[in-house]
């Protein structure tokens, strides 16, 4: 059963990591992630966590240390934000393409410039094609739970891909909420120790890990990686079900549907803004508007079948992106949703929305405004100009 205490999202992330028993942690502090590193260090200092923690000089080295440890067979953990993620891009890409499973928490932050330290999804969205699985969560409980589930997903032999658990900086990282902390024995039952076999640096089994590789093999490796990405949907669904059976909390796997069944129009969100969106849906439902919410939980791989299934018979949808795609006047989740529906042959009126950049507020009024715009759209309407959630 565990116990329920009031903690921040960063503490929840650190506790989720600690319950997963990583052998090696390497991390470098950065706002708004810093207290994850501090909390993990204090657990080690208090003898509550038996991990080697390497206090590195940069995020580039953080990812490099855990890559070395993972190649030697260890379960590892790190956490970062924005500029730190950008600095670690080189070993980040290599971690996934070496197919080394791990979990990295990301307290999402806007990318500089303009100089900013506040919330956003631009950091992880900008690296969505670096081979990692990316999961976005809505609150502190989901952050803790998904770090544990993340290891289950990453280490599955059908997957073997590292996982980012992305939670909004400040809105989750610094917000106190009641969080149920599972018992260690329960987590141990859900997440057994990991034994790595496909890559190992061990003198008893000499192996050249990642020798020079010709193009025809690079093609095979990439295809294998992409195939494993597609298998991750089913593995996450199973991880979610097993987790729910053990701990009583089910999240829906790749997406969460909220009042979508009889809805005519649908909001699509990702991360912390989903709570506000649910409140807006409730408010408009009370006024008789048939609106629902589709929360994207898994951004990489993109769950196109699940998204299309929910939207198939709807009149219109809006995607609220807390990021931008330079070159398109929209955000990334909108682009991905459009691509999914187009590929599967659906034509549904849609509205791209951008808000919440650099910690800008996404208010209840913003959400209800979006719903009102959707109400005015007819089935088959061409997509509208991007709607920016400004003050």
């Amino acid at each position: 059963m565990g116990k329920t205490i009031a903690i921040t999202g960063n503490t929840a992330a650190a506790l989720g990591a600690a319950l997963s028993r990583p052998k090696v942690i390497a991390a470098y502090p950065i706002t708004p992630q810093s207290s994850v590193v501090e909390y993990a260090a204090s657990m080690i200092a208090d003898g509550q966590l038996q991990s080697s923690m390497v206090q590195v000089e940069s995020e580039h080295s953080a990812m490099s240390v855990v890559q070395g440890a993972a190649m030697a067979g260890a379960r590892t953990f790190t956490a970062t934000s924005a500029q730190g993620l950008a600095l670690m891009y080189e070993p980040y890409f290599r971690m996934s393409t070496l197919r080394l499973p791990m979990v990295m928490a990301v307290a999402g932050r806007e990318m500089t410039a303009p100089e900013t330290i506040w919330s956003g999804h631009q950091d992880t969205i900008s690296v969505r094609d670096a081979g990692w699985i990316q999961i976005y969560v809505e609150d502190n409980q989901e952050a803790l739970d998904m770090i544990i589930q993340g290891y289950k997903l990453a280490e599955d032999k059908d997957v073997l891909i590292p996982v980012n658990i992305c939670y909004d900086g400040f809105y989750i990282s610094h917000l106190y909420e009641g969080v149920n902390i599972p018992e260690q024995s329960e987590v141990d039952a859900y997440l057994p120790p990991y034994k790595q076999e496909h890559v190992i640096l061990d003198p008893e089994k000499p192996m050249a890990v990642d020798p020079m590789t010709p193009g025809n093999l690079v093609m095979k490796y990439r295809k294998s990686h992409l195939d494993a990405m597609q298998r991750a949907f089913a593995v996450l669904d199973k991880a979610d079900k097993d987790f729910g059976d053990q701990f009583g909390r089910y999240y829906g796997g790749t997406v969460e549907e909220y009042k979508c069944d009889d809805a005519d129009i649908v909001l699509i969100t990702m991360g912390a803004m989903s709570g506000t969106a649910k409140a807006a849906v409730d408010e408009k439902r009370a006024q008789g508007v048939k609106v629902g919410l589709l929360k994207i939980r898994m951004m990489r791989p993109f769950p196109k079948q699940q998204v299309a299934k929910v939207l198939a018979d709807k009149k219109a949808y809006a995607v609220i992106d807390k990021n931008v795609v330079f070159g398109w006047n929209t955000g990334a989740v909108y682009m991905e949703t459009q691509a999914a529906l187009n590929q599967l042959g659906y034509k549904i009126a849609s509205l791209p929305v951008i808000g919440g950049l650099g910690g800008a507020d996404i208010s209840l009024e913003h959400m209800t405004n979006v719903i009102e715009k959707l109400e005015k759209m007819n089935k088959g309407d061409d997509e509208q100009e991007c709607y920016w959630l400004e003050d």
Partner: protein
Amino acid sequence: MNYIELLDKKPDLVTPGTSACQGCPAELSLRATLKVLGENTIMCIPPGCMAGAGCVGWNFDSGLKVPVHITLLDNTAAVLTGINEAHGRDVTVAAFAGDGATSDCGFQSLSATAERGENVIYICYDNEGYMNTGFQRSGSTTKGSMTSTTPVGEVGKGKEQQKKDLPLIMAMHNPAYLATLSPSHMSDFVKKMEKAKSIKDGFVYLHIFSPCPTGWGFDGAKSIEVARKAVETNIFPLYEVDHGEYKLTVPNKNPKPVSELFGMMKKFRHVSEQGIQDVQNYVDKKYKTLQALVGQE
């Protein structure tokens, strides 16, 4: 076992068929290194000559007989750290990295690993530039040297800055053990490598001088002669720092002028007398610093 017996008897853990240039002392040094470190070793080699020569595995034809990983150019020391932290048993975790990967983009990671006192062995083979990719200059290139990025022309006269003194910089990180090694002094080389292997209480940094016949422009048969000249001219003094105790392991009472080394290769052919004197002055000052550290003022 003396060093000749050791080099003769111990198994060669580098496969045949590597494609290093004729007369490459880096390959020779790597083979000697692994003869000492032995089979219970995990090796990391970043991009550079030894990776390019196939020591990290190449077309299934060559590699090492111990576990090996080609790190990124800039993260070798951090990867060593991770491997070391993860291994539950006694394994020698070592790197064999060029001076570019060490003195330039990999330096941040190296400096931090030394500061943390990780019990790993970081070995730099110093051929004074990015030789594998056609001799671009590095921080470790000697002043005046012609390289492909410091070419000699009407205006350009080779590298304009003095060589970055990596071993002394690393000595200031307070490692458990540090040494400079030369393939021209194999008795000294093997002794230092054996000591490095025995260290269990902290970071080890070894710096090997590795003349490059292809890039520097001399006959591959003369690699050892060039390496010896670098020691004799104090361009590359042989010393060690064992837990803070400095020692010149091959004292040089009558150093030869650096011009003797300059005259042996093409990369210095254009250097003026003043240019040679600049390097002579730098080498003399550096040696005085070293003597002071040793306590031989």
